[in-house]
């Protein structure tokens, strides 16, 4: 089980995404709405840059001392009567949880939304246990589950690609007979899942932050399902990526504040909870509290240029500002981690072979880097993937590779570049067409090129298939000629 959500090739996914008008419109609408909310929430906080500095510092500090903090956390969980299992990969984590569910004779498993459990493919593993039922209880995850385990397309809003009518159809299979009003549908789910919650005996949650110095875990949610998952079942399993840890409640507080503002534009989400196994004199909460700490490829980022990616707190704001995500949505990326953070994370966790195109599906506009609350230089890391793919792994053997290497030569040699300037006009002029009054003014003084013969390189086609290209100026009319001439004139004037 990997993080891939599709076995279709990249180009096919992109073509399908482009054609999905509803999806693109809803992503655009979501991005625009989040832009307003997020900007306002951050503005109200004041000194946002200072908060980013502090948040980034916390994350970097923790990564620097990651084994120490994990050790402290693990000791404290055990001191509180809980259990910790360190899993080096998804298989170990998933198998552990499955065997635990069997040992505990779990019958009704409840889950609250967790990216890491999706990453390790936990649901499908648990469903192989005979007689066990499992319920995703986050509204969006529940919709995906009931829609034949459709894949999430956003790390915070997993069902962004579905409209209310599609969701209504999903619920009708469960006996819903109301209209497509989101509130009515949500009430139906509340009732449906409440009954299940009441008989749940095994709860699985993710973890926004683990608190090293007291062994608690911090969950940040809006619906209330995570808190029910932590309160009703007698056994709770927390699955956490190994990097999701903070020194104490104070640092969790700082990060929760930037997380909520970044993720959903709220000052704090409805529920921000710090929790562990129940005390003896308390009536609800888990008797048995397990934490599964998962590596699953994360340690490969340590001590590399990609280490800053481990600072990620999964707020999703980079998805919400990304102009590429806006066009192709989560399905275009084909990974449970889409958008800029996904373009960085997917090749590392899922392999370059599977996700080699993702780092190129980016215009390096740096909107992600600008918005990231923990200051991950996302666009730099995306570019760094390209370096790994081209200069280290040599993944491209196409004409584009040869051509770009030639560009490298051409832009380092003044002689070759001069030749390029000399021949640009001569080479392209034959394809030029005269402009008409209808054409965009100022852009095509020497004519436009809107078609190239099929033998032209793919890269050049890529431009001309979408946009008209200007015919380059004649050699003696280029900027450098003008400058030389201009300088002479100025010189004469001054003499």
């Amino acid at each position, binding site marked *: 089980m990997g993080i891939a959500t599709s076995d279709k090739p990249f180009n096919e996914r992109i073509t399908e995404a482009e054609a999905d008008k509803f999806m693109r419109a809803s992503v655009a609408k979501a991005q625009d709405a989040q832009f307003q909310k997020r900007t306002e929430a951050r503005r109200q906080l004041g000194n946002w840059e200072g908060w980013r500095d502090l948040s980034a510092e916390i994350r970097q500090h923790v990564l620097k001392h990651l084994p120490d903090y994990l050790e402290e956390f693990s000791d404290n969980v055990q001191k509180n009567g809980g259990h910790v299992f360190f899993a080096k990969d998804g298989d170990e984590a998933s198998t552990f949880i499955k065997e635990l569910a069997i040992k505990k004779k779990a019958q009704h498993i409840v889950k609250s939304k967790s990216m890491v459990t999706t990453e390790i493919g936990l649901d499908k593993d648990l469903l192989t246990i005979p007689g066990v039922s499992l319920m995703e209880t986050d509204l969006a995850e529940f919709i995906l589950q009931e829609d034949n385990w459709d894949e999430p397309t956003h790390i915070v809003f997993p069902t962004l690609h579905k409209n209310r009518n599609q969701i209504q159809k999903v619920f009708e299979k469960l006996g819903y007979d109301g209209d497509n009003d989101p509130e009515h549908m949500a009430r139906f789910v509340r009732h449906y899942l409440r009954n299940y919650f009441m008989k749940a005996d095994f709860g699985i949650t993710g973890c926004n932050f683990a608190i090293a110095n007291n062994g608690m875990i911090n969950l940040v949610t809006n619906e209330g399902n995570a808190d029910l998952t932590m309160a009703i079942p007698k056994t709770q399993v927390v699955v956490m990526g190994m990097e999701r840890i903070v020194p104490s409640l104070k640092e969790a507080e700082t990060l929760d504040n930037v997380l909520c503002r970044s993720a959903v534009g709220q000052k704090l989400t409805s529920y921000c909870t710090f929790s562990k196994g129940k005390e003896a004199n308390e009536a609800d909460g888990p008797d048995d509290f397990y934490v599964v700490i998962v590596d699953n490829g994360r340690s490969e980022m340590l001590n590399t240029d990609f280490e800053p990616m481990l600072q990620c707190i999964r707020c999703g704001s980079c998805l919400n500002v990304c102009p590429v995500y806006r066009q192709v949505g989560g399905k275009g990326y084909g990974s449970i981690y889409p958008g800029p953070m996904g373009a960085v994370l997917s090749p590392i966790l899922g392999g370059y072979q599977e996700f080699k195109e993702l780092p190129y*599906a980016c215009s*390096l506009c740096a909107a992600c880097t600008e918005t990231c609350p923990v200051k991950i230089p996302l666009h730099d890391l995306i570019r760094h993937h390209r370096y790994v793919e081209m200069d280290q792994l040599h993944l491209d053997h196409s004409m584009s590779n040869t051509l770009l290497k030639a560009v*490298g030569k051409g*832009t380092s040699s003044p002689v070759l570049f001069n030749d390029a300037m000399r021949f640009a006009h001569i080479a392209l002029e034959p394809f030029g067409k005269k402009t008409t009054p209808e054409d965009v003014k100022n852009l095509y003084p020497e004519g436009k090129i809107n078609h190239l013969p099929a033998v032209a390189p793919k890269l050049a*086609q890529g*431009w001309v298939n979408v*946009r008209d*290209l200007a015919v380059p100026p004649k050699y003696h009319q280029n900027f450098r000629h003008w*400058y030389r001439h201009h300088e002479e004139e100025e010189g004469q004037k001054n003499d």
Partner: protein
Amino acid sequence: MRYTYYDKHLLIFIGFDYFKEAKCIQLMHTYMKVCIFSTCIVDLLYPDVGKATVELLQRFGCETFFPNKQICCGQPTYNSGYDKETMATFKNQLDALLSIDADYIVGPTGSCVAMLHEYKDIFKDDPEYAKKAQVLYDKSFELTQFIYRVLGILDCGAELDDTATFHRSCHMTRLLGERTAPIVLLEHVKGLQLIPLHNIQLCCGFGGTFSVKEPLISEAMVDDKADNVLKTKAHVLIACEQTCLMNIGGRINRRHDGSHIKIMHIAEVLNHNVDPSRITYVKDTDHVMVPANGNGVF
């Protein structure tokens, strides 16, 4: 990894009084030597942008120089992942631009200037070039940033009696950290009516080789941008980046849906119909210099 995109210009922001009161005045009494950083796109395709840049700077009393060995900042190959292949390009550009002992290096592009700034990080383990890269970093400015923040000019004396919308380019805004200088200068162009561009923060879909490697995605992005530009009903589209303009303009041209628009690089606007007697310096007004990052980065 670097985290210092905003450092230099944040300093300008903090120290703008210094620039305004001391350095700018002082500089205006001396001849400023400016090295022109033309960019390969101007050299290969758009001579008019280069001409306007030179004319502007000379009008403001700068002595300009053009080192002929300069070629390209290296973005096309570097941003495609060919780091090793680009090292020679970087070194050539660095040596060329520093071959003249100019006070400043100025280019009509935020993106390529930001790339020059990045050399500092790229060459950090090369003692010889690290030093040079630092000099390059300190001296290089984007054109409007240079006019507003270094020369201290508020009104270039230009006139353009038309409606226009401004496309804010990503690298200039986010990597160079300059989002306000061009707006301030445009607001002082006589007769120019600026119409706000919806979703100004979104990339136009150029992205260098991205536009040719991922034409499908790029097309969808530039279509959105073109739609928003055309919705303003402005007659002119202005930007600090000729590459964005050739992308947006080129797409509008291809769609041929009866939309008319004129494309102007900001250098051409600020150099349009100039009345030198109207050139105004910040120090002579009560204008408070606007910080480079505007209302902050959210």
